[in-house]
Each structure stands twice: as C-alpha cells, then as structure tokens.
C-alpha cells in the first residue's frame, strides 16, 4: 500500500531529478527510472490491478496524476534542453558574411555604345513609324555613286577616299560602301512608296585620325511619299534630336549645303554649350553640326525607277559614332574599335539597359 506522503516524496524526488538533468541522456535516464518498464511510477500503476474498486477509486487518480505531471515535466525539460542544445550548436555555426561573392554576369557584361545608340535610334524612329533597312558592305560603283547622282570624276570616287577591290575581268570594280546611301537605292528599287526607313550600318573611307577611322558607322533616314516635304523633315529631325539628346527643347539651325543626292541640301547644327569635356544641348550659344539632309534629288528618284513628278521625299544621314560621342562624351573615335575592356566597361552599357521610350532611353 502506498502512503500519500510517500507519493509526495516520490514526486518531489523525480521532479528534482528532471530539473537537474543537464542533457538528453540524463533526462532519458530519469524518464526510464520513473516511467520505464521497471520505473517507480510504472510500479505504482501496476499495483492498481491488485486493488479493490474502492481502493482503486481512491488511489487511481493520484497515481495517474503523478504520471501525467512527471510526463509533462519531462517534455518541458526536453524542449528546454533541445532549445539550449540548438543555441549551443548555432553559436558555432557562423560564416564570414563579409567574404565577397562573385560579380553577377549582368554586372560585368557590357554592350558597345554603338549597339546602344542603334537601339536608341530604333526606339525613336519605330515610334514615328519607321522600319529598319540594311544592305551589304561590299557595293557596286553604280549603287554607291552613279545612282546617287555622283558625277564621273567626283573626288569621292578616288582611290584616296574609297576602298576598292581588284577589278573583275569585265573591268568593273566592287568597293566598300562609303556611306549607307546605297541602301536608299536598294530600298527604292525593292519597295513601293510610301517608304519610311532608317538605315544603320558600317561604312568605310580611307582615312585615319582622332575623328576619322577607316571604318565607321552611319545611320541614314529615307522618306518617300507623295507629299513628304522639307517642313516634314524639319519636324522629324527636331523630334529626333529632342528624343535622342533627352532634352525638352533643342534649337536647330538648317543651313543650305550641297550633296550630290539631295536638292535642296542642308546641314543641320544644334545649339549647345561646350564645357571642358562635355557638350550640353538645349542651352548655350555655340552651334554644332550633327547631320546632313535634303530632298531626294530628282535624278536619284529617276535612277531608282520613281517619277519625280509623282513621288518626292527626303533623306538625312549622320555618324552613329559621332552622335554617340556627342551624347556620351567620348573624345577619340579610334577607341571605339580597340576593344579595350577598360574603355568598354566605362563607356559600354549594362546588358539589360535596353533603351525604350517607355522606360527612358538611358538610365
């Protein structure tokens, strides 16, 4: 028979040992001693079977209470010990978060400024309904000069200026196009008006100094329609300059000039202010020439199978490298083609900086 005070002693004793258990094995030993097959409380529970119903009614709840109390204390202690053990483990699990991680590829990759500027041009002109036309770098004399109304003996046709290939057996010579204008001819021959295209591409002239390289990039615009006139061209070029240089207004000056393939011909200056290494547009008192343009010469229209009495249009051309230099401040054209990673990293553009009119041309 168990006396009540014996039970109390037992309970006190077990709870003390639970509290004293410093780790999981010690706690398990206390559990086994109390609730294991031969544990003290298990032994008490076994005595219930030999009791009369009245005794059982008296002692059963007491013993079961004791068992529940001890079980709960063990569970609580186990949780405490587990938490302490995790804390102890985590204390040793540290990394030096100041160690550098490798640069993201999008951080180191760059697209060339020429690529970026062509993408900017496409964004601006696509919005005005222009498509993109292209043509081969190796051209015929006919497309590069004759159809564009260059007279025989024009200095541009000289070997000093134009790269030629060796003559064919029939005497004809191919050349590297000196401008993107032969693509105007190809476009007019291939497609019926209305025509609205821009033509970016590589061009070649036998020239080399700080602002001239034997290979460079031009972009050309061509509009052929029934009523397309000089006033429209002025508007398009003004819209272009504002969008490209990302200024609210830009003052432009159209000066009469001369090109064999346009009549009237004009050169365009934009107003700017020059500071040491920088040119600011939309302010200042200086003029800077940025492009040549004009109404397509009637002879060129005729040479391309269009009747100048029915169709008319305009064209303009400028250096992509040059407008890149003006906008982004490079001073030496030759560096564009040297593939110096320091220069490309400095003047190049991040791979996901895709120019859009919605997001802004440059970020």
């Amino acid at each position, binding site marked *: 028979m168990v006396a009540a005070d014996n039970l109390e002693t037992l309970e006190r004793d077990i709870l003390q040992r639970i509290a004293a258990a410093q780790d999981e094995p010690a706690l398990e030993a206390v559990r086994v001693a109390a609730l294991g097959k031969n544990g003290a409380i298990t032994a008490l529970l076994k005595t219930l079977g030999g009791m009369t119903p009245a005794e059982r009614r008296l002692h059963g709840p007491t013993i079961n209470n004791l068992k529940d109390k001890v079980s709960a204390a063990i569970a609580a202690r186990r949780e405490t010990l587990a938490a302490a053990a995790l804390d102890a483990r985590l204390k040793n699990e540290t990394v030096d978060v100041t160690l550098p991680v*490798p*640069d*993201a*590829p*999008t*951080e*180191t*990759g*760059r697209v*060339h400024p020429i*690529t970026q500027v062509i*993408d900017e041009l*496409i964004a601006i*002109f696509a919005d005005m*309904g222009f*498509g*993109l036309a292209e043509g*081969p*770098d*190796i051209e015929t004399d006919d497309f590069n000069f004759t159809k564009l109304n260059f007279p*025989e*003996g024009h*200095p541009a046709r*000289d*070997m000093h200026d134009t*790269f*030629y*290939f*060796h003559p064919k057996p029939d005497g004809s010579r191919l050349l*590297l196009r000196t401008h993107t204008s032969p693509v105007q001819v190809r476009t007019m021959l291939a497609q019926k008006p209305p025509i609205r295209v821009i033509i970016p591409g*590589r061009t*070649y002239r*036998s020239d080399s100094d700080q602002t001239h390289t*034997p290979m460079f990039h031009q972009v050309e615009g061509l509009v052929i329609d029934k009523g*397309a*006139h*000089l*006033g*429209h061209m002025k*508007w398009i070029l*003004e819209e272009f300059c504002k969008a490209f240089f990302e200024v609210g207004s830009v003052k432009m000056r159209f*000066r*009469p*000039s*001369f090109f064999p393939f346009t*009549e*009237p011909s004009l050169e365009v200056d934009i107003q700017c202010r020059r500071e040491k290494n920088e040119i600011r547009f939309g302010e200042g008192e200086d003029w800077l020439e940025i492009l040549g343009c004009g*109404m397509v010469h009637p002879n060129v229209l005729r040479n391309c199978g269009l009747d100048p009495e029915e169709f*008319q249009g305009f064209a303009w051309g400028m250096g992509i490298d040059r407008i890149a230099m003006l906008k982004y401040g490079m001073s030496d054209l030759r560096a*564009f083609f*040297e*593939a*110096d*990673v*320091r220069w*490309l990293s400095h003047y*190049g553009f991040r*791979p*996901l900086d*895709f120019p859009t009119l919605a997001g802004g041309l440059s970020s």
Partner: protein
Amino acid sequence: MKFTLAWLKDHLATDASLAEIVDKLTMIGLEVERVEDRAALLKPYVVASVISAEKHPNADRLRVCMVDTGAGAPVQVVCGAPNARAGMKGVFAPPGAYIPGKDTVLQVGTIRGVESRGMLVSEFELQLSDDHEGIIELPDDAPVGQSYAAYAGLDDPVIEINLTPNRPDCTGVNGIARDLGAALIGDYKPNSPKPVRGRYPCPVKVMIEAADLCPAFALRLVRGVKNGPSPRWMQRRLKAIGLRPINALVDITNYITYDRGRPLHVFDAAKVHGDLVVRRARNGETLLALDGRTYTLDDTVCVIADGKGVESLSGIMGGEATGCSASTTEVLIESALWNELNIAQTGRKLGINSDARYRFERGVDPNFTLPGLELATQMVIDLCGGEPSDIVVAGDPAPKREKVIDFPQSELARLTGLKLPLGDMRRVLEKLGFFVSGQGERVKVAVPSWRPDVHGKADLVEEIVRVIGVDRVPAVPFPRGEQARKPVLTAMQNRTRKAKRTLAARGMTEAVTWSFISKREAVLFGGGSPELALANPIAAELSDMRPSLLPGLIAAAQRNADRGFAHVALFEVGQVFRGDRPQDQLTAAAGLRRGLAKPDGAGRHWSRIAAPVDAFDAKADALAVLGELGAPIRALQVLPGAPSWFHPGRSGTIQLGPKTVIGHFGELHPRVLAELKADGPLAGFEILLEAVPEPRAKATRARPAPEFSPFQPIERDFAFVVDARTQAADIVRAAQNADRKLIAGVTVFDVYSGQGIEPGKKSIAIAVTIQPREKTLTEEEIGALGQRIVAEVAKRTGATLRG
C-alpha cells in the same frame, strides 16, 4: 575661299556689320569657317618712337629704351633686339597686351634689375611673318600713337568660307557679293569689264589640237610693260588671304582669280618660242613648273606648248621658263576654258592644288572668258603701262545661250511646304542673275552662265529657299498614319539584338573590331580569297574582308592581356564575308574567353577552384545564344571536331541534321595562336545567325494547355563503365530511348577515370528522371525499367554497369 571685308565692299554696297555679313553668309549656304579680325587682335599695338636706347647696366645684349607711345610720358622698355636704337620707329605693346606669337599676355617685368613696362615687338611676335631677327622698323613718317593695325592696313577682317563644290561662281568675291545682294544684306554693284581696243595684231598664234580638253582659248600681247611690285593695296589684299605678292603681272592674275573666280595666265612673251599649241602631253615629257617642282607628264595631261616644248600645265600651273619676272617687257595674257574632269584628274595625279585648278575643276563661267581677258588687259595697262594687241582666239569663247527651266510656282510649296508670292521668288532669282519671264503658274527661268549647278526645278527651289532662309520653312508634323503597328525589325535584326544582350548578360563585353583583317589571319580562318582582298588597303594588317569574327577577337584579347587584363570575355556580333556578292555577307555571333574568364566569374575566387576556360564554356555560350534565338535546342547535334583553327580534340560542331552547320566551339588551335602571337588559354565559339531556322509562323499566340502528371517523378542513378572514346551523348540517348514515354530526362552527373577504373575506360554516371503518367509505379515496374535502361545502354555503347 578667303577674302577681306573691304574687298567684298568693292562689289557690295552695304552698311551691315561684319557679324551680320558673316551670319548671312552661313545662312545662305556659304558657310563661314573662320573670321580673322586682326584689328581686334592687334588693338593695343601702337606706332611708337624710340627716344633713347642705352646699354643695360647688367647685360651686354640688352638695351634700356625710353619710348614715346603718343600717350603721356615716355615709357621705359628693356629690349634685346639688335636693331633697337634711338630715333627709330617701331610697334609698341603695353602691359596687358596679348602677344599672339608667344601666346602670352604681356606683364610689367623686371629684367636684370631694370623695370620694363611694355615691349617693342617683332613681326614674328605679331604672327605677321617668321621674322624674329629684330623688332619691326617703321618709316620715319609713321604717326606716333596711331593704331598699328590701321597704319599697316591690317584692319581689314579676313573671312574664310567653306565653299561647297557646286558653287564655282563663289570662288570669286564678285559672286559672293551677288549672293549677299540677293539676300538683301546690301546692293550688288554690277561691274562688267569694258573691252580694250587692240592696237595691232597679236603676233603669237594659238592652235588647239586637243579640242575635247580645251573648248576655248583667248590670247593677247601687251608690249612695253614695266613690271615691278604691285601697288600696296593689292599686296595687302593678297597677303591677307595668304598669297605671296610676286610682281604686278603675276599679282594681277591672282587678283582676278579671287576677284572674279577667273584664273588667267601670263607668259613672258620674250621667252615664248613661236606659236602656242594646246595638246596632250607626250608620255615622258617634263615641265619645271612655277612651284619649282619638275613634273613628268603623260598623254592624259593637257598642256600648252611652244616651239621648244611644254610651257604650261593647262588650267593648273604655268612653267618656270616662260614666267614673268621684273624684267618682263612683253606679256602674253591667256584666258581659256578647260575640261573640268581632266583638270581634276591631272591635278590629283600630279598632286597640285592650285587656285586655278580649284576653279577650273568646279567650272569657270564660260561667258567670262573674253571679259576676263579684257579686265586683265585693263589692269596691266593701268599698273604696268604698255600697248595691247588684238585678241587672238581658238575654239569658241563667244557667250553661249542660257539654259531655260520651265518652273511651276507650286514647286516651292510641293518640295518645302513654304508658300511665297511669285514676286518674292522672282526677286530672289533675278537678284541672283536668273531671268524670269511670264506671270502665270508656270514661268520660264533662264539660268546665268556662271551657275552650271542649276539644272532643274528642284535647283530653283533650293535657290529660293536658301536665299529667303530655310528658317522660314515651318516644321510640319509628319504623323505615322493609320497603319497598324507592325514590328519594324526583321527576324535577323531581332536575332542580332538578342544575341548581343544574351552574351552581355553572360558577363561578356561587346567588341566592335575592323571588318578587314590581315591576309595571314584571313587565310588561317578559312578566307583570304582574291575577290575579298582590297586593292588599296589603308594598312597591310587591314587588307582582307574577314571570314570570321574570331581573329579580331583573339587580337583584341591579346591586346588586353598585354595591358595586364588577362581574364577577358569578349564577343562580337557582326558581318563576315564568304564572297563578294550581297548574299555572301552573313551575320555571325562569336565569343572568346581567355584565362580564367569563366561564365560564373572571371579570375581567382575563394568560392571556386580556379580553372582555365575550356571548350564547355564556349559551348555553353553558344547554346545560350541559340536558345535565345529560338533554335530547337533539343534537336541540335553536337559532333566532335571543328575547322582547322580549333583544337582538333577539344572542339565541336553544332548542327541541325546532317547538312545545316550552325557553328563551332572549342579551344583554339595552339599552332594558329602561335602564328597570331597570341597566348591561351582561349576558348571561343562562332555561330551563323542565318543558319538558325526561322520558327514556323503560328496561327495563334495562345499556348496549348499544359499536361502536368499527378504522380511524383522518381529519380534513379546508374554508373556505367565504357571505353574512354565513348560519347556521353550516346549513353544519354540510349537511356532516353529505353522508354520514351516514361523517361522525362537524363543528366550526366559524374565523369570519372583513374583509380578503380581500368585504363582506357571511364565511368559515366547518369541520373534518370522517370515520370509516371497513368499510375504510381510499383518497385517491380521501376526495377524492370532500370533493367531496360542498362540493357539499352549496353547494347548501344558496350557499357557495363559499374560494380
């Protein structure tokens, strides 16, 4: 084209300021390149007289001068010039004056202990000449205190215009004045030369043998002339525009060249033997020209010859032997017309840029041949005296009929959008020398002989709009219209853009390299055919159109390495050439990695083992681009081996079916690198964007509904031992083929050879993903599938399961 303001005013009555004139010139298409206003530059400089010049107490070569500048007390100046002496007159610069020859601002200074409050200057210091031997000495009557620029006639501003090649009329001051008159900046003063009556027949005859090269020739003798220096006013003008005065006869021809755009030539008649013949030169004939150089000629060159031989290069430069000198007493004056194209070709061939060539190749007014000769005659008589002969002519110098253009008034508005009353158009054209007849919608416009550039309606529109002012043409919006929005880029253009951004997003840097490379490089990379070699390359290393982007990238990588940047990843997307026809130009994308420039970062890093770039990095770059371009990645085949510039064992070819080669990747061949003087490790790829098939056009943008299996996928690993030459792709394909329905994927997760594997063999471990479709698979079913995989791989590759 250069001229001075006073010279312009000989032909234009105007009160407009220099700034107004300059601005108007630019706005009517005569772009002003430079204005040299020496009056402004030389403003502080005055005529001064040296009162005394004593030896400097502390320096033998210096003098201490007291200078009367005309303003207040004499000024003390320390001077080192050997010619500084008491009583002379010179040019004084006060402190604060800018000295152009030294590019400094003069300060009050102390020279060897003596204060100097100004300077007596040399011509070099004022950039008037190269003379820096001594200070400028002025005549005794020079007025002390007067502006030196005004005294010396240097106060006439010089204007230089960048003349477009279509305007021969503006190679003379007269033509420029006419343009300004039309633009209402002043009144043009018409000034036709008057004929000078001949007193006797010209004793020298002219015969034109080369009629195609010389349409007209007029000649006249003036005898009894007294040649000497030309008058000061003429010398000043010639000097101001950069010409050296020679003697009156020569200066007159130069003056008329600039005044009227009419080049002339003068022969010393005493040195001419017999009559003159205009003919083609004989091959090998030579001429000592007036520039002191001897030219060897051929039969493309037109010359003027006498009984002794060639005496002048027609329309370009005269000969030394018959040139006029101070002792000339009889002068033959020539006014002729020459074939523009021939003049240009001869000038270019002989490398002569003369004022005569400049004008004749642009087209000299044919109707001014005789008036030009009359004007020259009059000036010779006025300046040198003498008695003129009759004019002798060959060819046809008589004025020609003008060309007439039928001009509808509406043409201006049609081409420019600008509407002007006929009166305004007529005024502009008439002031430019055109003759307008008629009043209706269509008028007739006669073109003056000095405007060979005007052919048709569009040219007249240009004349009107440039003179009226292009700024008066209103900008008119040009809407994009009602057309539906369509892509503006072609498929190829989109591919180019995507390829660039994809490679940049893999950490690579875009290079733009020359389209031409050296012959050696071209040959090494499968090119170098004769039709792609330039006839006139700018440099030997830029001689052949590139067959591949790789040589340019290899050279670029090496340049970076030489600068200390060893681990670079470069790419280029651009044109390559297979032949010289348009369809032979293709667009390639190529990438090149060097050193430790791996796709996951360049250089050494604590987080990974530093390994050099290899074929697999290049393969990954290539496949990344192809995937982005929409190539059918799963259908691509990768075969061992690539063209000769790749490492034979560490390179591959990407193709679609047996015929369509899309590109190559791998390490570069060590021998090729040695030839290019480039160091590795280098791995690269090159693909042709045109070779990627275009995806089929789809009827709808909607995508099919997905089929997701409700059952979990299972993964099973297999390790095989195979012959070392066995291709992993064969094992993967065999495993895949064991059950095409259930096997959703096969990856290779380990490749091993070495300890535990027999020499000549390797172990390849694959992970197979099994995706049950209809029910969960039982262990038995999974086991059976495993057996089939092993059996299939064994059958195809001779593999055994690794024990």
